[in-house]
């Protein structure tokens, strides 16, 4: 693709020229350096759909193409070679090698976080993404896809010692909770079937939780099941693979030329049986792949969008909102109770207690709540399986409440300490001179006055916690924000569902402000 032949590149070239002039003015003495600092105007560019026909010339054959994927724990797609951690291996690595040969052009690997692959391709961090990316309606709206290079099916997996389930229908009748990956065909299928699900964002954790008996089954892409579930003697495949989806290579819109040449290369690899050899080498060839010859990513996917009507998604949003409320209220009650104890220990405790309290505040204020949540949910579960201490195997909601509670308790403790410390010592003495002892004095005289000082910062902490609950989606709790992400991706109704979600948050948080002002008035009586 050549910039100057491109009508849309004209303004860009002008800008570049103007910029070059400015740089030249600034650095007259080193004109060559200045010119080098300017991005080359001939850089490959996105073209508007209308300009497609003019995008003919392929990129200079010698420049390497940049391919992005996430090598972190992604067998059999792409993962670190245990024999040589500098190296990545996987069926996608082999496929890319074959494509490079086919195109006569080197392809360079770029490590990229899986969840950021789509934004990454849009912001030109690389030329294409290939990492088991499933063709979904919303992705199709934003990206350009190659022809499919693999037909995947879904495999239900359960524990070897659990004979209840052999199909999705069994999951439904047995009221099972099924783990799956976020924003995948498997998740959408579970939603469609009305099966309780738990959503993860990596392919390792669902099987871990399954062996820990936190969930009853896992539904994920077959290649993942082949690598992560089949070797595990504690797990078994429940029934045959079901459904069908496609992996394809993602380009940014406008890269039709590149996509076209890769499509052609894929076609040749398929014809020659090269694809089959690669997949067979990785043990993932099956009959389904025969379909690759005639498959085009079709508009069947747009179908799912039509199915997401208001009366379908709104109850799910409300469920998320209700969980958000329960989660924030419970966590905050925990934070208030622990916070008060910590503040009291710090204010009135004997030396070792005081140090403990200081340590508590510094520790929990200093570590990210996300780390704490991971530790409580996964770290403690390790303990439980190594030592048989079932009590440490926290349910997701318990882990979430504990984590948020412990974290916010540190902040509440400091607020309480400041508020209580602000009450003059004279109030203690006045109560003492009336014969009152410490505990009733604190409860009846000091705390009611301190609450007035404590209340405003405490309310804003509660609102902050209320919004921080979105972080617990990391440990498979589907609260309001997570529900929004899932629903909007499944339905592509970003605006509509986004506005509704924001509205739900406001409906919940605005009354909080009003309540706080009322409480302040009530507790503030008599005090200026």
């Amino acid at each position, binding site marked *: 693709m050549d910039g100057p032949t491109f009508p849309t590149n004209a303004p860009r070239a002008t800008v570049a020229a103007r910029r070059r002039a400015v740089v030249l003015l600034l650095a007259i003495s080193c004109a060559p350096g200045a010119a080098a600092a300017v991005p080359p105007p001939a850089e490959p560019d996105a073209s508007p759909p209308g300009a497609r026909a003019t995008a003919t010339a392929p990129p200079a054959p010698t420049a390497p193409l940049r391919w992005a994927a996430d090598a972190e724990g992604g067998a059999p797609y792409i993962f670190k070679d245990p024999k040589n951690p500098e190296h990545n291996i996987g069926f996608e690595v082999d496929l890319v090698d074959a494509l490079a040969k086919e195109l006569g052009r080197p392809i360079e690997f770029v490590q990229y976080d899986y969840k950021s692959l789509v934004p990454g391709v849009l912001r030109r961090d690389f030329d294409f993404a290939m990492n088991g990316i499933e063709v979904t309606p919303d992705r199709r709206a934003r990206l350009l896809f190659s022809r499919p290079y693999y037909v995947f099916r879904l495999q239900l997996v359960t524990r070897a010692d659990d004979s209840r389930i052999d199909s999705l229908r069994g999951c439904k009748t047995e009221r099972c909770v099924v783990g799956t990956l976020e924003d995948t065909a498997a998740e959408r299928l579970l939603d469609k079937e009305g099966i309780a699900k738990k959503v993860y964002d990596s392919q390792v954790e669902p099987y871990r939780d399954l062996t820990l008996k936190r969930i009853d089954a896992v539904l994920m892409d077959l290649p993942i099941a082949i690598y992560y579930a089949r070797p595990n003697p504690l797990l078994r495949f429940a029934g045959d693979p079901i459904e069908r989806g496609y992996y394809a290579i993602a380009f940014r819109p406008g890269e039709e030329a590149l996509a076209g040449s890769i499509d052609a290369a894929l076609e040749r690899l398929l014809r020659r049986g090269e694809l089959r050899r690669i997949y067979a080498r990785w043990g993932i060839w099956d009959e389904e792949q025969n379909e690759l010859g005639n498959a085009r990513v079709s508009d069947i996917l747009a179908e799912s969008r039509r199915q997401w009507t208001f009366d379908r998604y709104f109850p799910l949003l409300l469920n998320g909102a209700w969980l958000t409320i329960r989660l924030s209220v419970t966590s905050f009650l925990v934070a208030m109770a622990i916070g008060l104890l910590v503040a009291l220990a710090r204010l009135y405790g004997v030396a070792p207690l005081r140090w403990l309290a200081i340590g508590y505040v510094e520790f929990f204020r200093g570590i990210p709540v996300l780390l704490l949540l991971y530790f409580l949910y996964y770290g403690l579960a390790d303990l439980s399986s190594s030592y048989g201490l079932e009590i440490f195997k926290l349910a997701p909601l318990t882990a979430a409440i504990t984590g948020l509670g412990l974290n916010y308790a540190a902040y509440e403790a400091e607020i309480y300490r400041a508020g209580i410390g602000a009450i003059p010592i004279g109030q203690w003495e006045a109560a003492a*001179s*009336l*014969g009152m002892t410490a505990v009733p004095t604190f409860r009846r005289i000091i705390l009611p*006055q301190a609450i*007035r000082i404590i209340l405003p910062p405490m309310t804003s902490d509660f609102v902050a916690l209320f919004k921080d609950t979105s972080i617990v989606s990391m440990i498979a709790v589907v609260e309001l924000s997570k529900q929004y992400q899932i629903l909007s991706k499944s339905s592509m109704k970003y605006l509509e569902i986004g506005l509704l979600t924001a509205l739900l948050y406001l409906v919940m948080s605005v009354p909080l402000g009003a309540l706080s002002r009322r409480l302040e008035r009530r507790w503030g009586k*008599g005090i*200026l």
Partner: protein
Amino acid sequence: MDANDLKITLSGVSKRFGDRPVLDGVSLGVEPGETLAMIGPSGGGKSTLLRCINGLTSFDAGEIRVGPHRLAPDRGRGSNGATARAVRRLVGMIFQDFRLFPHLTALQNLIEAPVRVLRTPREEAVAQARQLLRRVGLGEYADAYPRQLSGGQQQRVAIARALAMSPRGLLCDEITSALDPELKGEVLSVLEGLKRDGITLMVVTHEIGFARRAADRVVVLDGGRIIEDGPPSQVIDRPRTPRTRQFLSQILG
């Protein structure tokens, strides 16, 4: 009021703040029903003396007897706790800065301690509180919050609050110092009423007129020692020490 037998005795009470002596071997006896005025320059130890008597401040040497109770030197806070609480049931304390509970109404300020400490039934405590408020001239202000009252009114509520515990003695720590001159009178006349009722009063004050009029006895504290002790006619009108004369002439202008 019942016949008062509350005797307060200090023997050789000493206290230092760092290396500065605040009380230097003070011995003093206060008879039941007596009104004792303590005067003297600032920093002379008057307030510290009062605070030692009801256990708000510890002391280093000597002993203090309040009725049957004996307070001993105490380094750590609270080892005198039970005794201090027993002493506080006998003698109330009133502070220069009132120290009312700002989140409670006048009436609630009065009933808090009787209900919590003496376990007085609430209705009884309320009736007693209303009567006490009338006695200090604030019958109308039962439901007012402290900030809605003038300084003089607040201090009278504080006196009523101390009286609600039915003490036999009151320790008054410069209770008119924070008040405008026209408000001092209303507080002092309440004190004079208490004296007539036979309550033992130890009053730290700069109101020489009040001391002359109401006190049975005046002591002058200077540098942590009692330098003069006698009836007002003697201490105020014919002071023996030059230090007292100097102090009185400063204060009387």
